[in-house]
C-alpha cells in the first residue's frame, strides 16, 4: 500500500521534481529500476550532445572504477551512499565522482555527479560556463583560485629567476678583480682550499711588480691601471688556461696557483717568461712604462701536509728573497731563507 502511495505521489509531480533537480544538481541522472537512464541533468546533457544519455544503460555509458566489479543494477544499488569514481566510456573519458541514492519504493535511483579534480580539463573540453554549475557549486571559485594562484606563481617564478641571475652575477663579481678580470684573493683562497682537499700536488707562485709605484707616481693611475691589465694578460698567456689560477691579491701583487705541477725547471721557465715579458716596455698614451717583477714559489711536495696559510707565507718568503737578490728573479722556498722583514732596503 505505501509503495503504491509513493508511486501515486511521484507520478504526476515527476516533471516538477525534474525541474527542481535540474537546478539543484545539473549533473544528476535518474535511473529506472533496471538501471537505464530516464533523464540526465542539463550540464550532463551538454557533455554528450551527439549521444544522448537518456535511454541508455547507466553502466554502458559510464565505466565504474571504484567500487570495482559493479556489473548490475543490483550491484549499483548495493553501493548506495558510497562515493563512486567513474568516467565516460566514450571519449573524452572525463573522470567523474558521484553518489547514488535509491528512490523510495524501488523505482530506481538518482546518481549525482561532479567533475572533481578533472574540472580544469572539463571546462576546456566542453566549454562550460558559470551557468552550467549549481549556484552553490564551488567550481567557479576553484577555477578562480587556480588561475589567480598560477598568475601569482608565475610572478614568483620570474622573480626567482631574476634573483638567481643577479646572485650568479654578484658571485662572479665577488670572485673577480674588476680591473684585470683575474681572480681575486677570495677566489684564490677558495681554489687553494679545494686543491689541498683533493691532495693534488701544486705550486704557489707569488709575483710582485717592481717599479710599479714609479709608473703610478710619474704617469698617473690611468697608466698604472693599463700596466696592471697588460701584466694580467702576460700572466694569463704564460700559464695554462683552465688549469692554473691567476689572482691579483693586492695593488701590484699577484698569486699563481699551478695545479698538478711541482717540477722546478718548468716553474722556473714560467717565472722567467713572465719576468721577460713584463720587462718589455709597455706603451700608454705616448709614454713608455717599464716595470719588472720578482717571483717566489713554494711547492706542495715540500710539505707532509700542505696548509694554505703556511704555503702562502713561504711563497712570500721566497718572493722577498728574490727582492733581496736584486729583483727580476725567481726563488723557490727553502727553510734556510731569511724571513721577510719589512721595510726592505730602498723599497
Amino acid at each position: 500500500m505505501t509503495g503504491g502511495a509513493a508511486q501515486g505521489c511521484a507520478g504526476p509531480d515527476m516533471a516538477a521534481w525534474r525541474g527542481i533537480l535540474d537546478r539543484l544538481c545539473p549533473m544528476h541522472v535518474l535511473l529506472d529500476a533496471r538501471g537505464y537512464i530516464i533523464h540526465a541533468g542539463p550540464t550532463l546533457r551538454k557533455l554528450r550532445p551527439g549521444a544522448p544519455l537518456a535511454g541508455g544503460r547507466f553502466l554502458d555509458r559510464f565505466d565504474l572504477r571504484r567500487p570495482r566489479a559493479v556489473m548490475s543494477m543490483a550491484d549499483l544499488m548495493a553501493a548506495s551512499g558510497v562515493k563512486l569514481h567513474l568516467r565516460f566510456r566514450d571519449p573524452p573519458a572525463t573522470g567523474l565522482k558521484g553518489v547514488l541514492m535509491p528512490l523510495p519504493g524501488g523505482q530506481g535511483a538518482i546518481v549525482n555527479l561532479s567533475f572533481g579534480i578533472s574540472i580544469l580539463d572539463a571546462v576546456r573540453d566542453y566549454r562550460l560556463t558559470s551557468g552550467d554549475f549549481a549556484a552553490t557549486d564551488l567550481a567557479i571559485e576553484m577555477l578562480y583560485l587556480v588561475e589567480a594562484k598560477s598568475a601569482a606563481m608565475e610572478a614568483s617564478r620570474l622573480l626567482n629567476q631574476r634573483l638567481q641571475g643577479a646572485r650568479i652575477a654578484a658571485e662572479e663579481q665577488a670572485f673577480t678583480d674588476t680591473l684585470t678580470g683575474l681572480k681575486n684573493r677570495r677566489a684564490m683562497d677558495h681554489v687553494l682550499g679545494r686543491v689541498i682537499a683533493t691532495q693534488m700536488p701544486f705550486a704557489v707562485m707569488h709575483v710582485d711588480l717592481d717599479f710599479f709605484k714609479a709608473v703610478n707616481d710619474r704617469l698617473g693611475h690611468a697608466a698604472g691601471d693599463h700596466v696592471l691589465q697588460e701584466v694580467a694578460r702576460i700572466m694569463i698567456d704564460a700559464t695554462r688556461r683552465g688549469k692554473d689560477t691567476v689572482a691579483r691579491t693586492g695593488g701590484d701583487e699577484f698569486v699563481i696557483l699551478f695545479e698538478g705541477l711541482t717540477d722546478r725547471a718548468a716553474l722556473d721557465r714560467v717565472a722567467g717568461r713572465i719576468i721577460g715579458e713584463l720587462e718589455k716596455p709597455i706603451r700608454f698614451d705616448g709614454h713608455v712604462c717599464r716595470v719588472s717583477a720578482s717571483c717566489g714559489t713554494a711547492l706542495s711536495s715540500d710539505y707532509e701536509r700542505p696548509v694554505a696559510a703556511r704555503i702562502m707565507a713561504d711563497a712570500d718568503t721566497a718572493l722577498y728573497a728574490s727582492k733581496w737578490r736584486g729583483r727580476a728573479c725567481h726563488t723557490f722556498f727553502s727553510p734556510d731563507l731569511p724571513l721577510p722583514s719589512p721595510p726592505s732596503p730602498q723599497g
Partner: protein
Amino acid sequence: MHGMINRAIQGFVTDTYGPERWARMACAAGLGFTDFEAMLVYDVALTPRILNAVCGDLEKPGDEVLEDIGTYLVSHPNAEAVRRLLRFGGVDFVEFLHSLDDLPDRARLAVPNLDLPELELHERAPDRFSLTLRWSLDGFGHVMMGALRTLADDYGALVLLDHQDTEDGREMIDITLIETGFAEGRDFDLGARAG
C-alpha cells in the same frame, strides 16, 4: 605597498608610452632603479612619488591618469589576468558589482599580503548602486572608475558613473545602470587561462 600595485603603474606607462618614457619617470621620481618587482613589497611612500612623476611627465591631472590606469588594467592584453580574475566575479555586470565586496578577500586568497581597497556596494534601486572605497592611497576611486567603465563594456552593459569624495575621507562612485544588454560584450571563456 605591494609591488603588484607599483608594477601595474609601470605596466600602464610601458605598454602605453614605451619603456624609455618609463625610465625617465623612474629617474624623475628618484627610484634608484627602473623595474618594480611584482612579488616584492615597497615603501608606501614610493607609490605617490612615482604617480607624481607619471602625471608630471604626461602633463595630465592625477584623476585622469588614475582612470587611464584603471582602463588599462582591464583591457590591455598584458593585463589579461586581471580582467579574467574580475570576470570570475559574476556572469553579468550586476552580479559582478556584488562580487566587489569580496574583492580584497579574493585577492588575498592568491597573494596573502596583497592589500586592496575596502569596497562596499549599496543597492539604491535595481538600476542604481553606490560603491564606497577606503584605502591607504588617495584617488583609487578614479582607478575604479576606469576599470568599471571598461568592464561594463566588457559585459555589454551601458552605465553612467559619477565619482565624489565623501566627508569622512572615503571615495564614492554612483553607478546608474541604463541597459544590461546594450552590446554584445566580450566573450569570457572559463577554460581559456590568461598566458
